[in-house]
């Protein structure tokens, strides 16, 4: 698989008067048109990594890397105008809570249509048509009606589907989903994942799925990257997760309560300070 995204030695550092935080310390990975999951706890740097790809890290954050290649284009060198063309048009991002990522004063349909018209020259009528099509693609029944609703009128699950519609309507090659299902109920989660799964496959896209939920990522993605303290601890195929080598990965898997675990103590993750300098 030709590399859609190739990241080498990514560092993101935040320097304030009080302290210096190295959020990402030397992350390298490559992906093709496949589904990759990035798993980590809070502070692992998983979200910051993806924001750095999209150029969404503002000062006092600094981004350095050996290279950040998206389809051959070096993302760091790109000037702001070209970055705007890439953002949304070729790489899109869906975030956790549609309550905060949808504009509350515009109808849902108008927002999606706007996302379309930013990247494609189209009339209002054409944009509306495309929007309704997209709403159907994310399996919203009665898309014409939903077009005219406002974000506060829809449920969390539908809000996320609207976000997916908005992010996919310009036809990007790579979709980054940052904890898209964490605020949703478990059955709604799976429905949303199925929609994303189908769309990503149909369009031959790549998908980066960021989550703290190891089980979910293992069952949904093709490959998994496990991050801790700004570094990648381990990368493996989803099917081989049970053979994971790194003690952090094993510890993370073991401390999850499962329906089948007998009651009693859960093995607690013992953090080894050596992991801070662990695999790159």
């Amino acid at each position, binding site marked *: 698989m030709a590399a859609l995204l190739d990241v080498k030695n990514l560092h993101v550092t935040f320097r304030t008067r009080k302290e210096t935080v190295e959020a990402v310390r030397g992350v390298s990975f490559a992906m093709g048109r496949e589904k990759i999951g990035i798993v980590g706890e809070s502070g692992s740097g998983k979200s910051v990594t993806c924001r750095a790809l999209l150029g969404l890290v503002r000062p006092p954050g600094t981004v350095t890397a050996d290279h950040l290649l998206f389809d051959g284009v070096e993302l760091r060198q790109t000037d702001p105008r070209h970055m705007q063309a890439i953002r949304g048009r070729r790489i899109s991002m869906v975030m956790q809570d549609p309550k905060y990522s949808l504009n509350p004063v515009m109808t849902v349909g108008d927002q999606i249509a706007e996302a379309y018209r930013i990247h494609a020259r189209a009339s209002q009528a054409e944009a509306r048509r495309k929007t309704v099509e997209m709403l159907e693609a994310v399996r919203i029944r009665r898309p014409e009606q939903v077009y005219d609703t406002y974000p506060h009128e829809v449920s969390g699950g539908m809000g996320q589907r609207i976000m997916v519609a908005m992010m996919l309507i310009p036809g990007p090659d790579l979709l980054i989903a940052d904890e898209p299902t964490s605020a949703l109920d478990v059955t709604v989660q799976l429905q949303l*994942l199925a929609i994303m799964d189908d769309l990503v496959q149909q369009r031959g896209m790549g998908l980066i799925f960021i989550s703290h939920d190891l089980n979910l990522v293992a069952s949904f993605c093709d490959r998994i990257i496990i991050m801790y303290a700004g570094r990648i601890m381990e990368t493996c195929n989803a099917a081989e997760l049970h053979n994971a080598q790194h003690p952090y990965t094993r510890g993370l898997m073991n401390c999850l309560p499962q329906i089948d675990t007998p009651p009693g103590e859960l093995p607690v993750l013992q953090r080894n300070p050596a992991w801070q300098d662990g695999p790159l």
Partner: protein
Amino acid sequence: MITVSDLSVTFGRGRRAVPAVQRVSFTVEAGGLYGIVGESGSGKSTILNVLSGLNRRWRGSVTIDGDQQALQRDLAFHKKVQMVFQDPYGSLHPRHTVDRILSEPVAIHRLGQSAARVVKALEEVGLGPEFRFRYPHQLSGGQRQRVAVARALILEPRILLLDEPTSALDVSVQAEVLNLLTGLHQRRNLTYILVSHNLAVVAHMCRRIAVMNRGVIIEELGVDTLRNRSPEHPYTRQLLSASLGYDRQAVAMLEEFDMDD
């Protein structure tokens, strides 16, 4: 220990009335570990709010430790029943030190010896005395939740109501807090009611589980039934299979049990 009979809670009035809880009944024995699992809007948190006395608009009957409960609760009740909340960042007052947070209940109930009690409560949740004068923003999420548990325990209650106590915590921290709760239950012979949307957590911690949807308990089962994958109600089966992870085929078969869309 706890008997709930025909409990109903409605929010709003007239045409906009929403029945949050509809004629729910269940019993928890002393020393029990009872779980209530359901998705958002199922009414599970509302039940806890009624049991704790935070919600005063309900109909039905609630009996705790032999006493029929009125809408308003008294001081003695609060000594017996305590609650741990979901959000570790919201449940501690940002301007109070840990010491102040823990000594307040002691002062309200006039128990005396607050310094000794505070240190002992911190010890029980695995925090040393150096945490006594810190502010919440100087603590991690797991530490804050431990302080919340210490606060609930300092009055030596018999019943602990747990409202999604680990949902906002990292997975590794969740394991520590769940272990803490398990240990406390054994050592102090408490009665727990644990509410969560996470079936794995509820199945791990509880012996009996009520599954709720849209204000109604649709099934009550022992945890072994879950382990044997043999729940009766289709909604429970669906919840169970959804909790096991993503399965494209299974998703296609998901039914709509509520009127989303």
